[in-house]
C-alpha cells in the first residue's frame, strides 16, 4: 500500500484534519484508519470508486455520523460544533420540491444562523448573481435540473460558510453550467473558502484541485498534489517505426519497452522519473531508424486513479 502526504512546502493552517478515522457498519469497514490534513483556502478533490468510503467520510466531516475510531476536526473543532461555518451540497440537490427557490435558500440560511430578513435579502441577491432572479418565486419542482442544482449551490453558500463540502456538484449539469460552477468554486477558493468536493470526473479534479485524496475500499491510497499524482506513473513515449526498437531498453532512463500491441501501430516506452525523452530520439537517429511518429506524454489523473483503485480492486480479489 502506497500512501503519500502533501509535500508542497508551506502548509496553511488546517481547515480539515482527520486522524486515524475508522467507521464500521456491522462487519463491514467503510473507512479504515484515514488521516488527512487540508489547509484553508484550498480545493481538495476527494476521489474514489463507488463504495470507497467517500460518502461515509463526508458524513463524518459533517457531523452526521460519529467515527468508531480516530478524531475529526473541522476548523479546529469537532464537526457538530461548527455547523454554521460549513456548507453542504449533496449529489441529489437535497431541496424540498414544493418550496420556492427564494424560500428554500432563505430557510437553510436561517438554519445556519442568519436572521430572517438577512437570509431573504441574501437569497435574492445570490439568485440575481447566478442569473435566476426571475425564478425566485418558482417552486423547485418547476425548475430544470440545472437550475435546481444552481439553487442548491446557492443554498449551500447563502450563509457565507468557511468550509464547503460538495458531493458530486457537477452531476447533471450541461457544459455551460459546469463551467460557471467551476468558475464559482475557483472564486470561492480565491476568497479563502476551504472546499472539499467528491467527484468521479477526473478532468474536473485536474482542472480545479490543488490537493487530491484517493480512497479505495475505505483506505487512503493517495494524498498529494496533482503533480505528485502524475509522478506516481511513469511518463511514456510512443514511437512509430517498422524496425525493432528493443535496443532502447538499454538506455539509462528507460524502464520498459513494449512492442506494438495487436492493432496498435506504436511502440510503448516507459520512462523513469525525471528521464528526458530526447535520449530516445538520439538513440533512434544513431541507429538510423526511420520514425513515423513520436510523442511524449504525462500520465493522466484517470490513469493514476485506475492504477491505484484497480490495484486495490485486484488486491481485494
Amino acid at each position, binding site marked *: 500500500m502506497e500512501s503519500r502526504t502533501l509535500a508542497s512546502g508551506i502548509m496553511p493552517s488546517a481547515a480539515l484534519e482527520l486522524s486515524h478515522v475508522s467507521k464500521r457498519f456491522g462487519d463491514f469497514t467503510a473507512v479504515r484508519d484515514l488521516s488527512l490534513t487540508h489547509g484553508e483556502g484550498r480545493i481538495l478533490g476527494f476521489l474514489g470508486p463507488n463504495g470507497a468510503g467517500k460518502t461515509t467520510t463526508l*458524513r463524518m466531516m*459533517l*457531523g*452526521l*455520523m460519529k467515527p468508531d475510531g480516530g478524531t475529526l476536526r473541522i476548523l479546529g473543532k469537532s464537526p*457538530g460544533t461548527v*455547523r454554521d461555518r*460549513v456548507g*453542504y*451540497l*449533496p*449529489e*441529489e*440537490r*437535497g*431541496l*424540498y*420540491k*414544493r418550496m420556492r427557490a427564494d424560500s428554500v435558500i432563505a*430557510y*437553510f440560511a*436561517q*438554519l*445556519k444562523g442568519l436572521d430572517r430578513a438577512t437570509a431573504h435579502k441574501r437569497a435574492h441577491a445570490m439568485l440575481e448573481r447566478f442569473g435566476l432572479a426571475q425564478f425566485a418565486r418558482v417552486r423547485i419542482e418547476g425548475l430544470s435540473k440545472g437550475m435546481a442544482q444552481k439553487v442548491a449551490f446557492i*443554498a449551500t453558500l447563502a450563509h457565507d460558510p468557511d468550509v464547503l*463540502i460538495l458531493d458530486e456538484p457537477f452531476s447533471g449539469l450541461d457544459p455551460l453550467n459546469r463551467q460557471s460552477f467551476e468558475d464559482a468554486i475557483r472564486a470561492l477558493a480565491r476568497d479563502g473558502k476551504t472546499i472539499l468536493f467528491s467527484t468521479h470526473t477526473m478532468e474536473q479534479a485536474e482542472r480545479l484541485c490543488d490537493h487530491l485524496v484517493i480512497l479505495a475500499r475505505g483506505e487512503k491510497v493517495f494524498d498529494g498534489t496533482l503533480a505528485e499524482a502524475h509522478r506516481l506513473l511513469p511518463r511514456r513515449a510512443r514511437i512509430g517505426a517498422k524496425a525493432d526498437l528493443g535496443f532502447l531498453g538499454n538506455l539509462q532512463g528507460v524502464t520498459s519497452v513494449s512492442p506494438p500491441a495487436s492493432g496498435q501501430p506504436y511502440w510503448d516506452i516507459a520512462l523513469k522519473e525525471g528521464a528526458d525523452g530526447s535520449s530516445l530520439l538520439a538513440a533512434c537517429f544513431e541507429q538510423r531508424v526511420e520514425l513515423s511518429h513520436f510523442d511524449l506524454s504525462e500520465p493522466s489523473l484517470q490513469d493514476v486513479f485506475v492504477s491505484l483503485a484497480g490495484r486495490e480492486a485486484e488486491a481485494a480479489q
Partner: protein
Amino acid sequence: MRRALLVARSEFLKYVTRRGFIISLLMFPVWVVIGGVVPQWIESKTPTRNFTVVDKTGGRFAFAIAKAVRDDDEIAERDALSAFAQSNLDLPRLRERLPQLAVIVDSSSEDPETLARFRKSGGANGILSLAAPFRKTDARFQPPRPRFHFSPPGALQGADESRFAQAVNDRLSGSDPLYAVVFIPKGFSNAKSGPEAEFWSINASDPDLEHFVRRALTEELRRQLLAKFAPDVPPDTFKPTVAMRAYDPAASGGDHEISLADQARTYAPAVLAFLLLLTIFMNAGALLSGVIEEKSSRIVEVMLSCVTPVEFMTGKLLGAAAASLLTLILWAAMLLAGAAIFLPGALSNFGGLLTSIVSTGLFPMLLLCFVCGLLIYASIFLAIGSMATSIQDAQALVGPTMILVMAPLIMMPALLRDPNGAIATVLSWIPVYTPFFMMFRLPWNPPLLEVVGATILMIATTIVLVIQMGRVFANHVLTAERPPRLSALVRSMLRR
C-alpha cells in the same frame, strides 16, 4: 431551540399547504352535514308502508292497530310542528300570550296530554292559524309523510285457511302491493302458549312495522286485561308516563339539574379523544411520506448538516402538533360559521356550549392529553418513516402500529359502561394509551391519585418516547437499508 422552531414553522407550512390538509379540512363539515341530513333524507324518502290486518277475533285488535297508526301520524306531525315553530314562530311571545298553545309546541310527544291538546286544537293547521300573529316568517308548514297506512283487508278477511298463503302472496306482489299483512288468529288473546300473531311480508329486512304492530297489540291486550279485571278503572290509569330529569351534585346550575352545557362538558372530552385518533390517522401518512421523501432525496443530510437529529425531530413533531391544533380550531370555526348561516337560532347555544367547554377547569388538562397523545403517536410514525426506504417498507410497519392506535376504539363500549371501572383504570396505565383514556375519563371524576399518577406517567412517556424515537430516527434516517429487526431496533433505542 431556535432551529427546532424554524423546522417546526417550515413543517407546519408544509402540512397546511398540502392538498390533503385542505381536503380533510373541508371533509369535516361534509361529514357533519352527511351525518345530520342523510338519515333524515333517507327517512323522508322511505315510502309509506301500506299494510292490512286480518283479525279473526272480531276486529278489536285491528281497530287498535288502526288507532295506533293514527296516533303515530299525529305524533310525527306534532314533532314536525315543534321543529317548525323553533325557526318560524316568536316562541317567547307565544309562551307569554298563549301559554296553553305554547305548551303543545314545547312539551314532549310522549306525554298523552300533549297529544290530546294537539288533537283538540285542530292539529298542526289549527295551531298554526291560532298562532298566526306570532309568525316570524311566511314559511309553509309541510306535514311529514305518514310512516304507515292501514288498508282494509278486503277479500283476505274471508280467505280460506288452505288458500290464505296464496291470497297473501297475491296482495303482497300485485300491481298495488301491500307491504305486509298481519294475521290475528281466533283465540289470540287466550292462547295457552301466549298470544301470537303472524306478520307476512316479503321485506324481512325492515323491522319497523313489525315492532310497531307488536307494541299496538301488546297495548290493546293490556287494555283488555285491565277492562276484565278492573272494569271500573279508566283504561289509561295504569299507563303512567315517567319523566326523568337528570341531576348531578357537580352540575353547573343552582338546582344541580344537568343542563346541555353539563352534557357538552361530559362528552366533549370523548369527542376530543376521537378527534385525537382522527388527526393521528390524518397526519400519519404525511409524517411517513415526508420522512421517506427526505431520505430518498437526501434532504435529510442537508437538514442534519444544519440541525441536530433531536432538533429536526422536535421541529417535525411541533409542526405536526400545531397543524393538528389548527385543524381542530378550524373545524370548530366551521361549525360555528355553519350554525351562523344555517341555524342562526342555535348559534348562541352552540357558542355557549363551546365557551362552557373551554372555560371548564378540565380544558388545560384535556389540551395536555391531546398534545401528549399527538406527540407520542407522531414520534412513533416519524421513527417508522426513518427506518423505511420506501412507502412499501413503511406499510409493513404501519399495519401493526395502526392496530395499536385503534385499540382504544375497540375498548370504547367497555369505557362507556363504566368510565372508572377496572378495565378503564388498567387501560389508563398503559403508557401509550394514557392520553386517550385519561381524556375520556376526566369528566367522570377518576380518583385524584390516579389523575396525578397518570399525568406524570403521560408526560414521562411522552418525553421518553420522543427521546427514544429520536434515537431511532437519528440512527436510521441516514441508512438506505431495509427496516431493522426488532432486536436491532431495541438496540438502536438504547444506543446514544
